[in-house]
Structures are given as C-alpha cells and as structure tokens.
C-alpha cells in the first residue's frame, strides 16, 4: 500500500524502547526539579540579602543564566568543562544545566512571592511577639507558597520539556530513543507523534497535580 497511515503495530512492537527512554526522561526531570527547587531558594535569599557580597553574585547569576540558552549552558558544561579537566557524564551535565537555569527562574518566583506578602504581615507577626525567623517560617513563607504554586508548576513543566534537549549531548532519553528508532525505520512520523503524546501526558500530569494541590492549600489559608 502506497498511502500513509498511522502504524500502531509498529509503535506497539517498539514500546520497550519508549519505556526505556521515558525512564531516563523521568530520572533527568526529577533530579533537575529537585536541584532547581532547592538551588532557587538559596539564590532567592542571596537576591533579597542586604549584604552586597551575597546580593551581587546572586543577581549576576540570575541575569546571566536567564539570558542565555540552556542548550549553550549544556554544551559549556559538557564539552567546555571537559577541556578544563572536569569530565562530567552527559546525564550529570544535562541535569546541572537544567537545574542551574531553572534555579535562576525559581529564585525570582520565590522572591516575588515573598515580597508580595509584604512587610505588614511580617510586622504583624513580629508585633505578636514572634521572632523574625519564626515569623518568616510560620507566616510569610506559607502565604507566599499558596500564591506560588501556579508559577512554580509552570516552571516544572518547562523542566520536563527542556529535558528533551539533553538528547543533543547524547543522553538516551525519550527524544533521543525516538530519533534513533525513527532513523532506522520508515515510521518516522508515528514515532514522533507517540513521543509527543508521552510528553503531553507527563506535563499534564504535573499541571493537574499542582492545580489539585493549589486548591487544597487555598482551602487551608
């Protein structure tokens, strides 16, 4: 038959390849998310610090990482550091690049959230006799978190999608496995459509979970 149609049989026979790629995509995503969420917090406190030696480097970090492509950051970490004697594995370089850039984005999200809670909430808590750290922990941060669930969720979705870029430093994740499969078969279109569905399911799952969580937190506060 000369026409083109969607060859489900081909996809079904090759499902193990997709699963293996999906496993690596999940691994890279989870590690990069964890790194970005924690790293972002450290940088956010640097950005809000009144000490110049903390504020200046944190600001430079945020501006530089947010204004350069993550692909170039990946190449720099993977190929660039190797000639300087630090040889990273492709997965390590990919995770570091994704965590590094998204930490910069998350730092700004945290900062905006904490600043939007405002001085008055903090002062009210201090007036009630709370210590500064306790007021931050029990009043400012919980209120900020409820406002931040949506933007943080969007950033986590960006991380999942950007994991597809680690394929270009030869990490065998979903996109790379798909590309290899497409190149040694005629079913190129089927392969990428299937991969697209995998990503849609992943990103939608994260969005839905966070929306559910957001509704629950809003009920509490």
């Amino acid at each position, binding site marked *: 038959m000369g026409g*083109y149609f969607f060859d489900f049989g081909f996809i079904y026979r090759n499902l193990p390849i997709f699963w293996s790629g999906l496993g690596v995509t999940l691994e890279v995503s989870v590690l990069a998310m964890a790194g970005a969420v924690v790293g972002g917090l450290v940088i956010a406190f640097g950005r809000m610090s009144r000490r110049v030696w903390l504020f200046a480097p944190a600001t430079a970090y945020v*501006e*530089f990482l*947010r*204004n*350069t*492509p*993550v*692909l*170039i*950051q990946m*190449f*720099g970490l993977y*190929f*660039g*550091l*190797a*000639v*300087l004697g630090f040889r990273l594995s492709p997965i390590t370089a990919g995770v570091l690049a994704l965590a590094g850039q998204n930490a910069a984005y998350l730092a700004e999200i945290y900062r905006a959230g904490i600043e939007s809670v405002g001085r008055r909430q903090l002062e009210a808590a201090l007036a009630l006799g709370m210590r500064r750290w306790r007021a931050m922990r029990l009043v400012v941060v919980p209120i900020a978190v409820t406002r931040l669930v949506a933007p943080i969720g969007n950033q986590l*979705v960006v991380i999942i*999608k*950007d*994991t*597809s*870029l680690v*394929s*270009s430093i030869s990490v065998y994740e979903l*996109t790379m496995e*798909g*590309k290899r499969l*497409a190149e040694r078969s005629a079913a*190129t*279109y089927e392969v*990428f*459509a299937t*991969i*697209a569905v995998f*990503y*849609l399911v992943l*990103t*939608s799952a994260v969005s839905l979970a966070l929306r559910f969580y957001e509704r629950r937190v809003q009920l509490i506060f």
Partner: protein
Amino acid sequence: METLGTNLPYLLRGAKVTVLLFAASLALGTVVGVGAGLLSAARHPVPRGIVTVYVFLTRGIPLLVHLFLVYYLLPVIGLDLDPYVGATIVLALYIGAFISEVTRGAIGSVSRGQLDAALSLGMTRGRAMRKIVLRQAVRYFLPPYIGTAVMLVKLTSVVSVINIWELTLAGREVVERTLAPFQIFAGVALIYFAICYGLSLLGRAMERRIEFGH
C-alpha cells in the same frame, strides 16, 4: 582568547541569522498569538475551545519534538519547504501559544467594571472592547510580552539540533575546528546575553514611556 577573536566574525554572522529567525518568528507569532488571545475572550465556546486545544498541544510538548514532527512530516505529505521557512513557522506557532496566554492575561487584568461602565454609557460591545478594555490591557501586556520575546531568542538555538545554521550551530562548527569548546561557547553565550539583555532593557524603556502616557 585568540581563537575566539579570529572566529568572532563567523559567530557574528550566525548571530545575524539568529536575530532574523527571531524577528520573523516573533512578528508571525505575535499576529497568531494576539489573534488567539482575542479569540479566547470571545463569548462563543467554539473559538475558545480551539484556542484551548492549540495552547494545550503547544505548551505540553517540547519545541524539539515539534521541530522533529514537522521535519519528518513534510516529506511524507510531499511538501518541499525551505528549512528556514519551516523553522520560522514552527517557532512562530510555538511562541504564539505563549503570546496568546499573555494576551488573555492582559485582557483579564482590566477589571470587569470598566467594560460594564462602557456598555452602560451606550457603547457597543466591540467599541467598548477596543476603546476601553484593550487600550488599558496594553499596559499589562508589555512586560510579559518582552519576557516571552527573550524566551524566543533562546528557543531559536534549538533549531540547530535539526541542522539549521544559526549562532548555536556556528558555535558547534567552530568548536569542531578549533577544539576550544570552553572559550567558544562562552563567547556564544555572551552574544546571546547581549541580544536578550538588550531586548529586556528596550522593553523596560518602552514600559516607562507607556506609563508616562497614562
């Protein structure tokens, strides 16, 4: 630094292609995105539904996968498209989804009372939207729009993966020739930084002018 110096003209030629790709896809993407954003403010559920599906499909799938899909689909349907034109269209449709969200958010930021007041003064709905709501929405539109444009500059680097020559691919070629990846990628990053940061500064200047206008 010498290697970077001798290869700088080549990299700058790549940067020119990056800027052209960016400008073309931003122009097309803005038309698509603002159009989609306006449709999502429509009262009829069908255009709203179409925009929702468009945004869902675009934002949930990586740009690289979209590029591969088109790259492999075009020969199948027998369409012989120039790679740059194809990449521009994919980038434009991709960024269009983000711009449509920005547009929708900007319209939503203008309070409902403004529209009601205009309608109660006897304006038609179309006129009230144009003269009252959209005019105020521009202020809320600009800051996230500039952010989206900066995102687009960085996204153009992804087309290098399907062998379209621009700044990132130029950088990779120079690295293969010179074996000086650290220097060259640092140089490439600085060129991207100059474009993106320049764009942010331009955006901030535009915001200030618009705020004076009010």
